[in-house]
């Protein structure tokens, strides 16, 4: 039992970090494919060794801490993003029994960790002591706090339907029907909020390289920037796997493949959707984003919650 447990932790960490690194390559290749280009194709077969080259480059770049920065917080901030996302992965069930911590409050733990992720942006932006970084941090903080609300409300749909906060329980409860069908609205809201939470491209307002240089991580270089970078890809993987767990039946699937494979395949599809979004969407203005969140998604998610609860009560009676 003990040994198996450590194997799971090690395996999850290994797979996740490699996935995040591989996603850097994958995203560049896929973006190139969708924009009629090739992307990195020189180093190794299909350019996959570009990952190695990127990593080496990040390691050997000068790890500069600006003299005007708040040093402790500056160093601390990039670690938060990776740590919080990896912590959140602890509750994701990758397959039957393959989960690091099968908590009875898995959904809440995921929400808590994603809300702690805000700190990396806020602290990174503040500690850089730079106008653009501060602007990025402000945008990031308000965007992520707002979208967390809808994310939490949308998450309550599957929780109501399955009657448990445990993610494995939620997956098991989807044996009859995936929750995408009764919870289509919730899925859409969760997906949009997930993009905003990971500040991926349509909603990458905290970074907004065309207005804010690089937003909250303007002053970061070397592996500290690499942490933000990896954290973003880990975030994509996290949101994709949560979507799969909550709405697409997790590891459930036809029996000719083991559950883990199904989980990975489904997650991969959503990672692809994330990349496709980056390839096709323009960035909304900051106030448009907030207005869209509070005036459209918020009422919709409340309605979704109300409707789900009412239907559930009606059926149970």
């Amino acid at each position, binding site marked *: 039992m003990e040994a198996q447990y450590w194997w799971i932790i090690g395996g999850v960490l290994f797979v996740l970090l490699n996935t995040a690194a591989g996603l850097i390559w994958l995203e560049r290749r896929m973006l190139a494919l969708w924009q009629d280009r090739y992307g990195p194709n020189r180093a190794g077969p299909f350019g996959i060794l570009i990952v190695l080259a990127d990593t080496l480059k990040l390691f050997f770049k000068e790890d500069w801490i600006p003299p005007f920065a708040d040093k402790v917080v500056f160093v601390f901030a990039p670690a938060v993003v990776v740590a919080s996302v990896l912590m959140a992965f602890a509750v994701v069930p990758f397959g039957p029994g393959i989960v690091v911590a099968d908590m009875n409050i898995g959904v809440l733990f995921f929400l808590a960790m994603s809300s702690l992720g805000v*700190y990396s942006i806020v602290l990174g932006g*503040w500690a850089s002591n730079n106008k653009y970084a501060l602007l990025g941090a402000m945008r990031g903080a308000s965007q992520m706090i707002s979208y967390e609300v809808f994310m939490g409300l949308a998450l309550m749909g599957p929780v109501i339907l399955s009657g448990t906060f445990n993610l494995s329980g939620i997956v098991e409860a989807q044996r009859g029907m995936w929750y995408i069908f009764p919870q289509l609205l919730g899925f859409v809201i969760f997906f949009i909020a997930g993009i905003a939470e990971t500040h991926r491209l349509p909603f990458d307002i905290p970074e907004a390289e065309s207005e804010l240089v690089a937003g909250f991580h303007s002053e970061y270089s070397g592996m500290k920037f690499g942490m933000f970078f990896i954290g973003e890809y880990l975030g994509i993987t996290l949101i994709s796997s949560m979507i799969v767990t909550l709405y697409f039946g997790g590891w459930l699937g036809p029996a000719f493949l083991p559950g883990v494979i199904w989980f990975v395949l489904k997650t991969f599809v959503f990672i692809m959707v994330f990349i496709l979004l980056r390839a096709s969407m323009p960035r909304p203005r900051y106030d448009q984003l907030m207005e869209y969140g509070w005036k459209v998604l918020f009422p919709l998610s409340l309605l979704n919650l109300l409707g789900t609860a009412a239907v559930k009560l009606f059926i149970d009676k």
Partner: protein
Amino acid sequence: MGTAFYIAAAVAVLSTIMVITRYNIMHALLYFNVSMLSVAVVFYLYGAPFMAALELIVYAGAIMVLIIFFVMMLNLGSQTAGEERSWMTPGVWIGPSVLCLVLLAELVYLMVQPADTGAEIKVVDPKEVGKSLFGPYMLAVELAGMLLMAGIVGAYHLGRQKKKIVHRFLENSPS
């Protein structure tokens, strides 16, 4: 269980001490966060996982972020920390500390008294929290809801502004 509790409690106490002794307000807030995280761990260990998660989501994840958000915009530099240092004379902090020590002594006295309740941990799951919130504490929940509603309406009223035209080219464009 015991070791984890003592570690978490020690972290909570230490970080709280750090909160009140920091001159830089941002560092103080960060230590406050650590203190809240360790309190969440204590909650989790003693059978209130729901409370622990809410502590993380609401306090650490939302309220503290908002406070940091405001502090961030105040642009407090090193000279503010210096001012803070000059205000913190022994005469200021000795009074509260003595009172706190008295409280601590009382707490220790109560703790060393023979315990009259069983030490076993009863896990409070979300269902029970929900039942008690919408059962015996219905009135409090409703009152809190009213208060929040008033806050939202007030915020909307304060945030409402006349339509500003930024540029003459935008005069006829919607919004």
